[in-house]
């Protein structure tokens, strides 16, 4: 792999850009791999990358039914933060956030991580108390956040209306080192690094069956034929239930559509991410100037990647109240992605009833920010067969043991 650098740009400029190579190879599948990862989204590619980097396992195939990073990795609002209430959540999201900080250097790929700060507005007395509690919890967890007053909110983001009639801004939970990243670049960067380690990324190859014998997975059937493996990782947001069905077990998850929309580009007007959970909306400005807006999930099971129209109205109505200057803004695009939601709104990283089959799923509405941490933890799980410290609390058995990681109150809305 030729490294990307300022020198490479100069070299290619001098020869009409004829020397750029493809970022990753697209090979045909081999008969057998040590590990097959189903799903070439952020978490799947990160899992493969850390399998190679941390454990030296490189005979790996990453199988994707569509195109690389074309699911929720390419559909989210790119927010990165780790201000969670529960210790195990804070640990994995903070691991992810810290890996994002050096990701561009680690992957030699610009993922445009922008630690511009994330602000979660408190617009009711209950939210004030809740976020103060989270700030204290974060202090104990070693995650740097603080609870700030309305004047500081206005200073950090002047376009917010802090004395709105319905929900005045009473303060905010502020994480200075949170921010945004370029979601596609995260997938592309990991894919390039995986391909460079000799892993096979096989796109447009749908898994149609999971073959097992004696309680162990022996391989998968795909639209490109059967492929054998020693270990299987299922890392497929939105389709976890369908794959678990093929493998013959059930998941404590339901799939719903989550929507986002983006406005026409305007001049820079906000340089932080603002989340307003009471009124249901969050917004940041992309480098192109578009306002990136996240909305709500549908209340019913749904695989349509579309979402209900009234959520757009609710989200926009809430945001216009919080940011009056956007009232005349035109929206350019709207889209939906399918998210798997668990009972406690926390993900599942753990073993399955099939001994050599592992799962990373159920990130609900907040998987993007966790990509490096989720991949790191899942790679450890697959390599060792047992979860490491990051994944230990996230096994599916927590539902039978009543040991929840309850983020449904802390982050049930905007995640």
């Amino acid at each position: 792999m030729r490294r990307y650098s300022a020198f490479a740009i100069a070299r290619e400029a001098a020869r009409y850009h004829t020397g750029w190579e493809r970022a990753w190879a697209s090979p045909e599948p081999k008969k057998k791999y040590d590990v097959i990862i189903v799903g070439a989204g952020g978490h799947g590619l990160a899992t493969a990358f850390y399998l190679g980097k941390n454990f030296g396992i490189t005979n790996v195939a990453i199988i994707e039914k569509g195109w690389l990073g074309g699911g929720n990795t390419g559909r989210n609002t790119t927010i990165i933060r780790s201000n969670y209430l529960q210790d195990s959540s804070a640990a994995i999201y903070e691991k992810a956030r810290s890996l994002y900080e050096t990701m561009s250097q680690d992957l030699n790929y610009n993922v445009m991580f922008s630690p511009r700060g994330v602000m979660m507005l408190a617009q009711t007395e209950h939210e004030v108390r809740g976020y103060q509690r989270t700030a204290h919890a974060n202090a104990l967890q070693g995650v740097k956040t603080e609870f700030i007053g309305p004047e500081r909110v206005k200073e950090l983001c002047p376009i917010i209306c802090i004395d709105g009639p319905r929900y005045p801004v009473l303060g905010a939970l502020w994480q200075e080192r949170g921010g945004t990243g370029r979601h596609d670049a995260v997938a592309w960067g990991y894919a390039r690094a995986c391909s460079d380690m000799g892993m096979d990324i096989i796109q447009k190859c749908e898994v149609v069956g999971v073959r097992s014998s004696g309680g162990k997975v022996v391989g998968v059937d795909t639209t490109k034929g059967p492929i054998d493996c020693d270990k299987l990782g299922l890392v497929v947001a939105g389709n976890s239930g369908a794959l678990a069905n093929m493998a013959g077990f059930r998941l404590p998850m339901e799939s719903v559509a989550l929507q986002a929309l983006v406005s026409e580009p305007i001049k820079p007007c906000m340089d932080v991410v603002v989340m307003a959970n009471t009124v249901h909306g969050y917004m940041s400005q992309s480098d192109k100037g578009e306002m990136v807006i996240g909305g709500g999930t549908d209340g019913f099971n749904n695989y349509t990647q579309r979402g209900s129209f009234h959520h757009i109205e609710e989200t926009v109505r809430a945001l216009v109240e919080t940011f009056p200057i956007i009232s005349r803004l035109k929206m350019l695009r709207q889209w939906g992605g399918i998210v798997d939601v668990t009972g406690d709104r926390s993900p599942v990283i753990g073993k399955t009833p099939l001994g050599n089959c592992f799962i990373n799923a159920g990130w609900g509405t907040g998987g993007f920010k966790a990509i490096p941490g989720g991949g790191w933890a899942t790679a450890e799980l697959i390599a060792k067969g047992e979860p490491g410290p990051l994944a230990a609390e996230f096994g599916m058995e927590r539902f039978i043991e009543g040991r929840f990681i309850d983020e449904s109150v802390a982050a049930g809305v905007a995640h």
Partner: protein
Amino acid sequence: MLTLQCPYCGVWAEETELHAEGEAHLKRFGPGSDDADFESYLFMRENPKGVHFERWRHSHGCGKFFHAARCTMTLKVFGTYPAQTLEPPQDIKDRISETYPGWTWRNFK
């Protein structure tokens, strides 16, 4: 926008008038049941790609709970029926069979 007919008051209601209430025909397990049954009742959900049976409430109308058979891939509604039933009525099952021959959902087919 998803519209469902309330089987009680007959109103064709848009989804903003309704509230989705999750999976239908759950068998409830209480204190004294074994852990697996309790977990299954509380957390393990049917999450099919295709026909799904679910509870809805006509919350901004007559207030009644009812059941609906709906496809999660296309949002096609096969019918709604009163909640006081253990199984969907035959005509709804037949309508599903026209679209999805050989469908199954838990122990219904």
